[in-house]
């Protein structure tokens, strides 16, 4: 049977350009990109959306999504998005940020953007490390995790504790939706897709701030192959970073 005669039940989303990414094999930035594109497709907003890229492995957003994009300085995507959203209050605006970007240098910007209830969508990719710069310790690095700057493992007593951004942001009145998801199993990918869609819906329909943290892998800097890396998500990450919807004012 030719595929033309069949019903396509899984296709590359419209909003995702048909190009190869620069991501390492098995890197789940790719899955998350796809889910974001799918959400844009779902609301048919590709033609209106403005994406704000952050500095990290996802900096090349503009190469992968068929949308207008601003490249923000490291950590500042929520502030850049705020400027954009105020100018185009009826355009969907989203940021896509890594854990170094959002939870370290960009702490202040994300917190105050959420607190202002800025009607944007934030996709937060937590891979417990600085991927692009070579695997340094991130604010989300797990206790005892070895990285290139925590060669003896993260020592909570001096390096601090892995920070739970979703919990913190869910506590702010400006936040309408906050969820943590993972993409390590097909079921969780589907869940994650729903959360990301909901986060766009929160902006598009309710004009409110929405946040989704996605647990993701960095096989390269974890020194693992893609399968080991993927397994680590359930084994080590989820126990520390529990999945779930932490806030949903529409619920």
């Amino acid at each position, binding site marked *: 049977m030719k595929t033309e005669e069949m019903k396509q039940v899984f296709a590359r989303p419209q909003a995702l350009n048909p190009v190869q990414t620069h991501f390492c094999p098995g890197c789940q930035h790719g899955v998350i990109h796809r889910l974001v594109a799918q959400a844009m497709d779902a609301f048919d907003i590709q033609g209106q959306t*403005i994406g704000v890229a952050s500095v990290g492995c996802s900096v090349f957003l503009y190469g992968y999504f068929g949308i*207008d994009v*601003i490249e*923000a300085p490291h950590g500042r995507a929520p502030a850049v998005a705020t400027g954009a959203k105020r100018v185009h209050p009826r355009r969907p605006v989203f940021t896509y940020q890594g854990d170094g970007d959002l939870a370290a240098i960009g702490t202040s910007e994300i917190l*105050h953007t959420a607190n202002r209830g800025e009607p944007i969508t934030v996709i937060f990719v937590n891979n417990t490390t600085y991927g692009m710069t070579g695997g340094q310790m991130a604010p989300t690095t797990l206790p005892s995790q070895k990285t290139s700057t925590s060669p003896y493992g993260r020592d909570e007593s001096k390096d601090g504790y892995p920070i739970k951004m979703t919990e913190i942001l869910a506590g702010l009145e400006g936040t309408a939706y906050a969820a943590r998801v993972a993409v390590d199993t097909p079921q969780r990918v589907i869940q994650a897709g729903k959360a990301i869609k909901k986060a766009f819906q929160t902006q598009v329909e309710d004009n409110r701030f929405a946040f989704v943290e996605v647990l993701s892998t960095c096989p390269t800097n974890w020194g693992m192959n893609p399968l080991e890396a993927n397994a680590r998500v359930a084994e080590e990450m989820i126990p520390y970073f529990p999945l779930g919807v932490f806030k949903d004012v529409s619920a």
Partner: protein
Amino acid sequence: MTKRLFVKGNEAVAMGALEAGCRYYFGYPITPQSDIPEYISREMPALGGEFIQAESEIASINMLLGASACGARAMTSSSSPGISLKQEGISYMAGSECPGLIVNISRSGPGLGGIDASQADYFQATKGGGHGGYHIIVLAPASVQEMYDLTMHAFDLSDRYRVPAMILADAVIGQMKEALDPHPYKAPADLPPKDWALTGSGTREVNKVVKSLYLGVGELEQHNLKLHRKYAQMQEQEVRCEGYELEDAQLVVTAYGSTARIAHTAVRIARREGYKVGLLRPITLFPFPKQAYRDHTANGQKVLCVELNTGQMVDDVRLAVPQAEVDFYGRAPGAGSLPTPEEIFAQIRLHCEVH
């Protein structure tokens, strides 16, 4: 004729910006410039624009970047320590060719320093305090009227060249009140359309991107050369300065902003006393009015550069006229270090007699 108003320099900046169609302001409080956000927070709602008091100077400059990338006339304002914090953002705006206005009502430093006037941010403003060897347009008003006029002009220049612009003034020009003729803004007819600005890609084939990252071999070099061609073009076309009593002057006093005002009186005193002295006041600090210095030192005139710092613009003067004798009189900024006209006059006398 519209009625002459009597307003603060800071307010004139705010009024000029609103008149020029700026509808987005992002800022963080700091003395001695807080009149600007205060004025705008009062007036903006009625104009349907957005005033955001951001959580920091860094957030402000990045909100500006975002608004600018979407094609809006937008601005931020701060004072020296806050401007230092914006350096990365300014570098990004320069690199991604985002127009926009940054106002620095400069105060004394380094560090927390004090809240008195200072001209010690000249290097930072004109040489690129951020990384990467860019430049921004720098205008130096010397009156309340110019705070208004040059603010409008800054938006025009910034939009025309897609280069961020700065109003560099200080606590004297910002806090003083003078008469202001609030003439209406007229957009230059030949301003290029902002077809690069983000709107959501709509039905366009190609998405628009505002960015400063260029990784391909040769790309960033070409990008930088493009930026530098714009700077060269501005040097050709956008230089502004003002002369006073320069015709037969044998000593050219030069100063900008607040010290130019003070020097103006000093020159008036000196003329009264018979000294052949004039004042050359740069209005654009970048691009710098090199040619004017060449013209006015062509016959062996000497230059006395006066600054409220330990010597910054004087370097640009010396680079413009390496053959000329260029002297410097400065006061390190801080409470009580604003020079008086009498003090500058004394310097003029010294230079006319000694040399």
